[in-house]
């Protein structure tokens, strides 16, 4: 029998149905895509633009030395003259944004000189040679560091401990 275009078309009807199923699938996918992709996606690049603001909105836990210095300028004055001039407040006192927010009810913890000072100044072969380091036991025989050194200005001949 002659394969006229009409006959071929009729005999390919099932393929048309298959194609329709695929087309419906693709359309459903595109609709889902339009509905589900977050609005800010693509704003700055291939990511959710709002993510940047969300990440930036996290609360700070360290106050930053500038904030400490607005109230404690007297300490700053002492520190600036000594070897700990560039050591930030919270490097020793810990994170204190909560204290900066509510200085009256949130007080910083009392520091243990024996633990704190040793962390930086205990002699270790891997520390830079010129960094001041001692063997704590040999150096003070177990006495607390702040007996002789004022933490804010550690040089010994700068007056008695506060």
């Amino acid at each position, binding site marked *: 029998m002659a394969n006229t275009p009409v006959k071929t078309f009729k005999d390919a009807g099932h393929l048309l149905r298959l194609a329709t199923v695929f087309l419906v699938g693709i359309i459903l996918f595109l609709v889902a895509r339009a509905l589900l992709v977050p609005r800010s996606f693509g704003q700055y690049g291939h990511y959710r633009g709002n993510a940047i603001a969300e990440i930036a909105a996290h609360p700070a836990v360290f106050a930053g030395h500038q*904030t400490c210095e607005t109230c404690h300028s007297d300490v700053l004055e002492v520190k600036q003259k000594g070897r700990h001039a560039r050591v930030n407040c919270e490097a020793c006192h810990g994170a204190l944004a909560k204290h900066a927010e509510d200085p009256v009810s949130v007080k910083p913890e009392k520091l243990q000189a024996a633990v704190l000072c040793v962390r930086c100044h205990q002699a270790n072969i891997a520390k830079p040679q010129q960094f001041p380091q001692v063997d704590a036991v040999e150096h003070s025989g177990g006495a607390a560091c702040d007996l002789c050194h004022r933490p804010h200005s550690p040089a010994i001949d700068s007056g008695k401990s506060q």
Partner: protein
Amino acid sequence: MNLTRRRLLILLPAAAIAWKHILAGTPEAAPNYKMTEHWWGMLMDITKCIGCGNCVRGCQTENQVPDGYYRTWVERYHVEGWGSENPKVDSPDGGKHGFPAGNQIGGKNFFVPKLCNHCAESPCTQVCPVGATFISPDGVVLIDPTYCLGCRYCVQACPYGCRFIHPQKQTAEKCTLCYHRITKGLTTACCESCPTGARQLADLKNPQDPIHEFLRTHSIQVLKPYMATNSKVFYNGLDGSVR
């Protein structure tokens, strides 16, 4: 402390207001922070690092980093003679509590702090299948925790081992360069805690930033330069044995 009561009464409200103002800033919303004006990086001075671990602890405090995972960590190297291909390296708990005085005698010893290098051509952002990790317009590689699937491809792709999967959130996590701080004019928690200034935040787009002069006058390296990731963490005094 020499604060008189009177002085305190004046300073306290002023400080509280100043702090709230700092906290209120958000990028684009804050009039003084524009993302396109910044390109963040960091300077690491190996000659100054004393391995105290302040940075690791500070980062954990600031960012609620879970125990056993590290957004930043410190490694200690011990190199004998010319054996730069066989260093002995350790990092007990990431260096969080400093390093025990080792029994090494002689050789070359030093500390190397590490963190995400915020690569300008990062392989981690390249492989993320959905766009959950990306580099912000101001040069910080960030992770969107609400979009991340936790497929771990980015963790595999990072040559520096700076990424991990948060055990509870089950999404990828890493150093964000304290994005929430630097966009408010503060420095990162690790730089704030570092007692020797070994770590310095750097804004490469700021002509006044001291990094430009430093890069010009010192021998600087990045980690694994052959990976060509365009890393933005610059190391001064980095030894050839560092992996």
